[in-house]
């Protein structure tokens, strides 16, 4: 359950939003007691509910035209930056925040919560090939942003960013083995 909250905070970038999301998630799990009792992997189950609520909320924001990305609000509400927080971590959080959400969810579930590729596919309701390609692209975007975006430090060849970007686009949407 702490993993759930950690994931929500990392996803939304805001502790208050995250608290609210996790609360609704647990309430929903509780309201489906008959399912809850039989679920084998409660952790994956809770992540699935959390994700569904999150998607619903995003859709609602869009429908009602309150188009305020939670991340922007979070930036204002966010607790003052910890002076002791390493610069690298601060940069990393910023890079993560700018990442498109489809990539962020996959990276967080797998990299932070140790969810398997298969479970991530189930939780997000997409094929495992999509998980793999999002993981690959997301990590690459993150890496570039951490490297400052314009200069890749992995040895630049010829036309640099453009070549890399097109390579990224060519990555196949792989299917499960």
């Amino acid at each position, binding site marked *: 359950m*702490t993993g759930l909250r950690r994931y929500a905070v990392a996803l939304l970038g805001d502790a208050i939003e995250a*608290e609210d999301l996790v609360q609704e998630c647990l309430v929903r799990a509780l309201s489906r007691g008959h399912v809850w009792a039989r679920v084998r992997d409660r952790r994956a189950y809770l992540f699935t509910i959390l994700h569904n609520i999150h998607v619903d909320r995003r859709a609602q924001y869009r429908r009602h035209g309150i188009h305020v990305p939670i991340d922007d609000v979070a930036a204002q509400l966010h607790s003052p930056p910890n002076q002791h927080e390493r610069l690298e971590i601060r940069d990393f959080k910023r890079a993560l925040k700018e990442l498109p959400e489809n990539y962020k969810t996959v990276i967080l579930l797998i990299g932070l919560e140790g969810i398997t590729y298969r479970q991530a596919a189930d939780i997000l309701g997409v094929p495992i090939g999509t998980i793999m390609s999002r993981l690959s692209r997301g990590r690459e975007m993150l890496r570039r942003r951490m490297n400052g975006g314009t200069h890749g430090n992995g040895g630049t060849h010829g036309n640099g960013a453009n070549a890399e970007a097109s390579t990224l686009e060519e990555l196949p949407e792989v299917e499960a083995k």
Partner: protein
Amino acid sequence: MVRGADDFPVREEDLQAYVDGLLDVDRRAAIEAYLARRPQEAERVTSYRAQNLLLHQAFDAVADEPLSAPLDELKRRLTHAASRRHAVWRGARWVAAAACVAIVTSASWLGYERLFSSMTKEGPPVAFTRLAIDAHGLLTGDASPPLAERGAEGGNALVGWLSQRAIQAAKPAPDLKRFSLELGGGRVFLLGERPVVQLVYRDKQQQKLSLYLGASPDGDHQNAFTFVQQGELSTFYWRQGKLEFSLVGRMNRDELLAIAKAVHDQLNIATSGQESTPDPGKSGSLGSRIPHLTDEAVMSPGMPANERGGVTKTLMPPVK
């Protein structure tokens, strides 16, 4: 697609799985050989691994904060709801567990294992390590049920039970006091269809270390320690005779290896010189010797939510 060391095709998803520590030994070695000759790719992969670590450094503090009152209350109710419903299933699970044991003993341990090892796509080390990591995650999360057996006595009972059926010699749980680790207890999991014992050790800071023991599906084997890092969790996997082990903890490779070696040495004396053919008369009564196989103790942490089914179905595959 490019070719790796031994003409292995190395695909992007292999590199990602390498980052997440999901490859078996051979595959991992192939990827490492591949990366050794491609500094740019190696740099990329190293940076992805660093991302996983950074994620933990950035957000693990959240997990350590106390829950708010509403969350705490919800958690309490969910735990209660789960255990209340469990009572209904307890009877069914007991029957299923007993049936499972009966099948295992009558079909013979190894034959049974071979039958099911072909059903898993992952090799045994990977599957076992995944289970260990998943289970450890469950355990350290708040949603985990209480341990089935508390204290060193409970741990000894479980290890005794498993080692008795695997190597016909009841062994006590490894003693890790010289690492300042006290045995907190243990429980039984099912990996696929085979029981795996989880022992939990705690140090003075209440940091947890899990040791998993299972009966190895391929019979007698010795292999080197295999190290897997997933996020901050380190895992050592190894096989020893008919037993296989995974050690999972949030510590660095060297610390964990020292503990793995201690476990290996303590159980090594056990596995050598104790090889004997199974005694059917003896194993027939194994069911009664399962120490408190309660509903909390029987669970499959690795199973995705949408593949869950009735407990009975999972425990009783169509065995001929």
